[in-house]
């Protein structure tokens, strides 16, 4: 038990202990947090018959999802029991990369080899010569950051180019308000919508996000519906008609990539029409006059010219949002997927500040946390000397101060060139770079094949493992292991409870990381088993991991109005944790690293405005990354009930464009476009879908495609299905952001035999 005074947690009443019998099945209550699956962490009940998982249901007693569940977790038994699972550690010699000639080995041989090779590289080339890559930040981020840093490598990175996911919004928030915020759907309270302190937002502003099928900020997407049913108005900013956009009070169908201009236009209107929150701005904002001047060029008419959204709609949306007592912003990854992506987040944060939408019920709140998941775990184990060598950080002050991770594009560059130092090995945990996340597969193929030794840890054999792995480690799925859920958004004391034995010899990500961590740096990994490690993280709840299983979810203390109470700043003063103690519309933090102190709109590369000649050849704008209900990024394609929901990748095209192009519905076509500034083009195959909810000239497609049923030595068709073939590993001047959402493209039929 902890020596510190535990936090006063609020528990939820349960009918049963965490494990009980129901109708001859063993029921195990717990949390569902990847892999497989998403960023959230729903309460589930897993039913097993002997050692076989037979059914998963939502937990009706869990306030988070209240018994609901999406298709991916409902179908988890099919994933767990899949005949295609990786069951044993595998090895293959380097010259056979890409060939389906793996050999089964023992865990001892796998781990001994990894230990021996990594230590050899560290001794001879420096710890920085080993890169540690992780996929999207799920139940992996904390463990792998600690593994990398305690090994001594500063090159812990994410499998997406130039920080184009989530962290830009965090960074933009932090450098403007001193901290990060999430929308208030009452998720911090055990009694949820009935909590007397909570107030339903008057307006919900969904921006660059399809929250019903995607998920960020630890927000369960259908909470948007919960607040609409309780009376919230809805504004949606999206180039595509989503179901929410069709129901919205106001839908702003912007030209892809122009979000920042929309936000600046709204901010200008709010100021010009005197709709801003005078008291909040006077008390808590810095740089209002400069900001007002800065945005004054963004009249509704000018905003219309750039964004394609009618001036009167910009005005109406600004008015509706500003006049609400409580406005909640539900934003998404689209804002991160452009060059200079920090500008999007900054502009929207300034809009929130002008309207006083912070720290009050139904607005943006401070998520309670047990583990600083976002900044990585175990940073103290990386020496300043090693941090000096972090790839990307030395060229980009914004990467140096804004992220603890190395720049993935810079890691690729180092793999390709051996500069500024050679890269000898790559650790790839839950990444499927050739199908998803990674850009430009031609470059990705060269980069990872330059490394002498690659280890891939994953659930299934993937295109990435088939192409690059010298050792493959089989990983257990969440119903097969223990864990805790400390991810993005509001955290709770929450346990992931093993329901069945792992398939074959699978081990959990955490077991693998702990075991390797103990071999590399025992001092940094003082725990004998993962349960001890979990207990040390949830210590503040006053429970050990074992005790927490029956109690979870344990809700952490939460308050509104922290900035007024002096609870946001380390010095105990009132205000926000910035230099001035105010939300900085004119940001000292950005100014200090040589960036524009105020958010600024930059036109994207290869857009009709920046490159009109190129766009004659590539006349369509392609937006990638549309979500499908059954899939999480590149996962779930081998789960039959999910695959049946959407068997092949599609591109949504306006019916009139479709007629112009002479395509038939369901026809296979190539989408081809210039890869950034490389001078090359890339293409991907898609099936055509006529969709009236796309503007003319704009197309929309899903990412993450491969065919698990395909030929392993053709890398499961990933190279022709990956829409990131049109995306460059290169990025803009700040090191933050690459274009995924507004790509120039043309479309033409796939020929017979292609």
């Amino acid at each position, binding site marked *: 038990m902890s020596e510190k005074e535990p936090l006063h947690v609020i528990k939820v009443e349960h009918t049963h202990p965490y494990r009980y019998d129901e109708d001859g099945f063993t029921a195990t209550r717990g949390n569902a947090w990847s892999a497989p699956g998403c960023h959230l962490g729903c309460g589930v009940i897993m039913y097993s018959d002997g050692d076989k998982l037979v059914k998963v249901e939502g937990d009706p007693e869990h306030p988070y999802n209240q018994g609901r569940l*999406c298709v991916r977790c409902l179908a988890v038994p099919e994933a767990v029991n899949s005949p295609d699972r990786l069951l044993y550690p595998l090895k293959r010699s380097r010259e056979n990369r890409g060939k389906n000639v793996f050999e089964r080995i023992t865990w001892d041989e796998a781990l001994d080899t990894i230990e021996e090779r990594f230590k050899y590289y560290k001794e001879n080339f420096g710890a920085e010569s080993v890169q540690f890559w992780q996929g999207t930040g799920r139940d992996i981020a904390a463990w792998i950051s600690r593994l990398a840093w305690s090994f001594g490598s500063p090159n812990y990175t994410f499998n997406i180019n130039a920080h184009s996911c989530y962290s830009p919004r965090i960074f933009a928030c932090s450098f403007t308000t001193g901290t990060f915020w999430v929308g208030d759907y009452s998720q911090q309270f055990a009694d949820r919508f009935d909590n007397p302190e909570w107030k339903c937002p008057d307006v919900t502003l969904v921006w660059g996000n399809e929250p019903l099928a995607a998920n960020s900020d630890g927000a369960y997407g*259908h909470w948007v519906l919960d607040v609409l049913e309780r009376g919230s108005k809805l504004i949606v900013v999206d180039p595509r008609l989503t179901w929410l956009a069709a129901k919205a009070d106001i*839908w702003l169908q912007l030209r892809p990539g122009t979000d920042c201009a929309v936000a600046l236009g709204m901010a200008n209107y709010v100021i010009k029409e005197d709709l801003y929150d005078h008291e909040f701005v006077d008390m808590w904002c810095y740089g209002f006059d400069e900001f007002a001047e800065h945005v004054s060029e963004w009249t509704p008419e000018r905003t219309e010219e750039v964004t394609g959204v009618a001036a009167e709609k910009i005005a109406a949306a600004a008015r509706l949002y500003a006049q609400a007592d409580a406005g909640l912003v539900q934003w998404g990854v689209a804002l991160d997927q452009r060059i200079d992506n920090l500008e999007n987040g900054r502009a929207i944060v300034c809009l929130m500040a002008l309207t006083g939408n912070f720290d009050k019920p139904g607005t943006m709140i401070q998520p309670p946390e047990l583990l600083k998941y976002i900044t990585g775990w175990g940073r103290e184990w990386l020496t300043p000397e090693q941090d000096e060598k972090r790839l990307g950080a030395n060229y980009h002050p914004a990467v140096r101060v804004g992220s603890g991770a190395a720049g993935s594009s810079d890691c690729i560059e180092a793999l390709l060139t051996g500069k500024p130092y050679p890269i000898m090995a790559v650790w790839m945990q839950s990444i499927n770079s050739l199908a998803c996340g990674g850009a430009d597969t031609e470059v990705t193929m060269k980069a990872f094949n330059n490394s002498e030794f690659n280890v891939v840890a994953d659930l299934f054999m993937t295109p990435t493992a088939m192409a690059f792995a010298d050792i493959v480690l089989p990983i257990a799925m969440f119903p097969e292991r223990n864990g805790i859920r400390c991810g993005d958004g509001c955290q709770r004391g929450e346990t992931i409870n093993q329901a069945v034995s792992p398939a074959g010899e699978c081990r959990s990500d955490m077991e693998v990381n702990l075991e390797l961590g103990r071999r590399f740096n025992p001092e940094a990994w003082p725990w004998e088993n993962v349960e001890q490690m979990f207990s040390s993280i949830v210590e503040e709840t006053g429970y050990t991991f074992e005790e927490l299983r029956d109690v979870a979810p344990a809700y952490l203390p939460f308050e509104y109005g922290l900035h007024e109470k002096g609870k946001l700043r380390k010095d105990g003063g009132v205000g926000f944790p910035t230099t001035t103690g105010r939300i900085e519309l004119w940001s000292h933090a950005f100014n200090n690293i040589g960036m524009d102190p105020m958010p600024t709109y930059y036109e994207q590369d290869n857009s009709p405005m920046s490159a009109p000649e190129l766009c004659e050849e590539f006349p369509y704008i392609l937006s990638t990354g549309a979500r499908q209900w059954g899939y999480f990024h590149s996962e779930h394609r081998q789960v039959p009930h999910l695959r049946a929901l959407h068997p092949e990748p599609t591109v949504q095209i306006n019916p009139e464009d479709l007629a112009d192009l002479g395509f038939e519905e369901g026809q296979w076509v190539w989408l081809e476009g210039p890869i950034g500034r490389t001078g090359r083009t890339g293409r991907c195959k898609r099936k055509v879908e006529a969709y009236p909810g796309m503007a003319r000239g704009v197309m929309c497609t899903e990412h993450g495609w491969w065919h698990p049923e395909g030929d392993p030595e053709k890398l499961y068709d990933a190279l022709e299905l990956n829409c990131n073939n049109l995306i460059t590993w290169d990025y803009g001047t700040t090191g933050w952001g690459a274009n995924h959402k507004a790509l120039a493209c043309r479309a033409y039929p796939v020929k017979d035999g292609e």
Partner: protein
Amino acid sequence: MSKKGLLVSYNWCTGCHSCEIACQMENGLPVDQFGIKVSQIGPWQYGEDKWQYAYIPTITDQCTLCGKRVEKGKLPSCVQHCQAKCLKIVSEEEAAAAIAENGKQLFMTL
């Protein structure tokens, strides 16, 4: 005795397919058979800022209204897992009262 059925508040159905998969998993149905199936109506535009875009779940011959679950005090699997909370099991009278109060609802019996 009043007949029970499924009341669908289809104004809120987002087409998330949770009802379909929950039912298939509960009843061991193959990928091409359903106890409840969602249909998509739209999207099409019928005026400035006016879009028809709806989903409507419909029960099939293979639906049992999850009698066995209900006997044990649980909700039918589709009702429990519906992310939009737009499904309910109610009597004819309750359905009539609910429909009198709000539009865009559909009552289905076996």
